[in-house]
């Protein structure tokens, strides 16, 4: 187990994530509201929501089995575990080893699988529909993610996240600008898809027929719902970190400066997403696959550009 960060700082990255993740949805919604000319909910609203539903009791449908209760738990645990291999800013991941990027992908898949099964366990056609869509888009998103990572691997010659992000600096950008830019774009798309934000999905709509992620978790209540909301925030953070680490390649050596820059980057990302959500409408479902496949092609192009 290689301690990629010196001394006691290795736990900083997961700590930031666990503490600050719920800020991202808060920021997004706030931005959206402001752009729309409303005041919008306070930044800390997500924390409140989570705590509130954590305190609530739960109601379970007649058809459900223990698997339904297990779903959110596994999902959240998987995302939490994924923080261990996630490098954040100059602070490397707590655990970095050859192939950890595969583990990251595996953990995301695990969380997704658990959520889908929990949804199917309700026996309701709406959850089933949501699970079907989730499965569809995830099947397309996974190759895109791997393509993007593969491109980074090709660029840096490393097969572990921490060294990869350590190796990407201003200089790297300088001579592989198009490649990295395309990869970054891919990450943005993935951030939107995996977290079902506009233009892929609208978490705040009230028409279940058009939902993807939200409709899967309709029947969850109480602590389960809390876990789900928190997990969603963490997922935003994880994929965001991949993007930010790429576009904010500052390794000043000073932990605090790098950390601050990275946090700013995350905030910026959230604001950006808010802007997008305010500006765009969601695509019709049939266009979403093209959106994702397009992202994958971006990375493929990036790879080939670099190979050539």
């Amino acid at each position, binding site marked *: 187990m290689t301690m990629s960060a010196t001394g006691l700082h290795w736990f900083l990255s997961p700590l930031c994530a666990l503490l600050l993740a719920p800020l991202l949805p808060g920021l997004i919604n706030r931005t959206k509201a402001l752009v729309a000319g409303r005041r919008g909910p306070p930044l800390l609203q997500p924390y409140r929501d989570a705590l509130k539903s954590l305190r609530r009791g739960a109601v379970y449908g007649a*058809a459900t089995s223990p698997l339904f209760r297990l779903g959110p738990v596994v999902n959240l645990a998987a995302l939490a575990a994924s923080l261990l291999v996630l490098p954040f800013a100059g602070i490397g991941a707590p655990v970095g080893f050859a192939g*950890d990027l595969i583990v990251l992908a595996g953990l995301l898949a695990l969380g997704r699988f658990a959520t889908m099964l929990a949804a199917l366990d309700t026996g309701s056609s709406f959850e089933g529909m949501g699970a079907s869509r989730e499965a569809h888009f995830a099947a397309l998103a996974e190759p895109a993610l791997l393509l993007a990572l593969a491109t980074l691997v090709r660029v840096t010659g490393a097969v572990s996240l921490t060294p990869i992000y350590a190796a990407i600096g201003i200089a790297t950008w300088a001579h592989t600008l198009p490649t990295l830019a395309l990869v970054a774009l891919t990450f943005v798309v993935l951030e939107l898809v995996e977290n079902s934000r506009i233009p892929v999905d609208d978490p705040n709509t009230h028409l279940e027929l058009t939902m993807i992620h939200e409709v899967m978790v309709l029947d969850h209540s109480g602590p*389960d719902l809390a876990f789900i909301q928190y997990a969603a925030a963490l997922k935003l953070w994880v994929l965001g970190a991949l993007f930010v680490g790429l576009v904010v390649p500052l390794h000043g050596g000073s932990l605090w400066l790098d950390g601050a820059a990275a946090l700013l980057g995350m905030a910026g990302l959230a604001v950006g997403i808010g802007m997008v959500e305010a500006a765009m409408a969601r695509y019709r479902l049939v266009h979403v696959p093209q959106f994702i496949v397009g992202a994958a092609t971006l990375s493929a192009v990036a790879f080939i550009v670099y190979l050539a």
Partner: protein
Amino acid sequence: MDVFLVALALLWVGGGIAAVLRARPDAAQIAGQAGAVAGSAVGLAAAIGVLVSGRGETLVAFWPMPGGELNLAIDALSAFFLLPVFGLSLLTGLYGRSYLAGRGNAAAAASWFHLNTLTVAMALVIVAANGLLLLLAWEVMALSSFFLVIADDRQASVRHAAWTYLVAAHLGTSFLLVLFVLLGSAAGTGDFSGYIGVLRGNPALSSAIFLLALIGFGSKAGIVPAHVWLPEAHPVAPSHASALMSGAMIKVGIYGIVRILTMMDAPPAWWGWVLIAAGASSGVLGVLFALAQHDLKRLLAYHSVENIGIILLGIGIGVLGLAHGMTTLAVIGFAAGLLHVLNHSIFKGLLFLGAGAVQHAAHTLELEELGGLLKRMKWTGTCFLIGAAAIVGLPPLNGFVSEFLLFYSGFLGIAGASATVAAAGLIAVVAMGLISGLAAACFAKAFGVVFLGTARSHEAEAAHEVAPPMLAAMAVLALLCVAIGAAAPVVVRSLGVVVAQATGLAAPQVRAALAPVAGGLGNATAIFAVLALAAALLWLVRARRLAIAGAARGPVWGCGFQHPTARMQYTASSFAQPLTTQFRLFIGSRERLVPPAGYFPETASYASDTGDPFLRLLFAPGFRWFSRVVAPLHVLQRGHIHVYVLYLAATLVGLLIWGSLWQ
């Protein structure tokens, strides 16, 4: 070697007694099961002994058959491939009797003979070191499995499936015949040592042999488009037989390819490309076809095609590594392929046994008829869930380990110097990504529709948990899935000796190449431990909160539907519909969509039906075309004796003219 022979003897004696006692089915079943279990246990011991001691065993005896010799050899490679054969045979033996108990007739009794013969034949193929001996065992393997497939012969569909199967087997064998006869005549002997002698330093012959092996053995392994027999044969065979066939028999095909590769010099790069192409296409198409199925066992059969593709991807990358002299790449590629052989036999065996349990309990495998079984068949459901998660490649189970190795080799290739290898690596990584994503979708559908929600039919409602022996067999396999995942580093390290033999590299080299990836897996397992811990913690928290706040059962916000019925559930077809429509081009599934019309639609339905496009668009038309072509031969035999005598005269005159011209 003696132990091994004892194992075969036990298997066969048990089967033989079962065949003889067919008049008294119960006794016969006991005998057959005893033979299967005991023999397989002994055989397993022999294989493990070889793997542990690292010392191969050989037996050479005279076999009075020209071109043949009774030449057996168990080396690490054979021993490794013996594991799934004997292991699965042991468990299917355990499982089989309770499964067949429903139909305690003579045929069921006789099926033990075929089952045990199949095991013996597979074992012989794997340890044979003589071309003719291998061919003989190969044919016996095909024949005995044919009898297993046709066990339920009253249905015409079963007979047709059996026909498809044996035809495919025979066509594959004819390539192998050419292969071994060619090698034999070049080497002047039927023994593998002789083959090695002529293959080394003879690239032309080697390439020919490689292609023959890929087609001949590949048709048994189920490489697209030679896969068409799998989705026909596996669903109709008794489930424990399907488990043995899908878990072990198709691996024998992989064994053949690997064994042939070990006889040759460092392969040229294009072999690697061929293997990767075959692997990628089989993998992706296999999982796509699987998505469109709504018969559980058909679906599983197509997943076998997919997993064979994954295995070939690994081997292909390994070959490419050997061709470019990239040792680490070669080692990890082969390790991925070989480990996936073992893993697939475990979880595919488990899934087929689970499907058998479902059939046994609910008397149907039609997905749209099932549902909610998890509540009635807790243990079966749990085992099936583990198997599903494993085959999807989710951490922390065994499927993830081999897919980790495969991804890792892909990334290694990408990170490496050579651009072509990088391209190959990218293909592998992307294909694997697509495959695992689609597989996740497919098994979410399969498990969700069968075990979750509410029952869609009365049979499913009346389902009950199956007998303990069947559960035991499934539990063992499920535990293996978990164990291999947990002990990943150890497993990967211990693959060294097998990989060394498959690649022909020196053992230290191999160990050196495997060490880092094993270490990485060590970290991964640590992370999964953390995950498990976190999950447990969260579960506790949740339990505490609910203990305080209380959890109720009752109607939930079902989007306004207060009384959901089973028929409102999402069906398997609907679940897969977005993907099947997106990949319609490849799947070629026929969809029947009756869209709702008007403001108050009476009926609306969607159903999809996917016969295998290769069967439907390639082979069946081919056969029809051929029979059309030969039909005109009728004219030659119209019954007029004068014409017949005319043939005679014409032949004579023609020959005389030819003869007088001949010098």
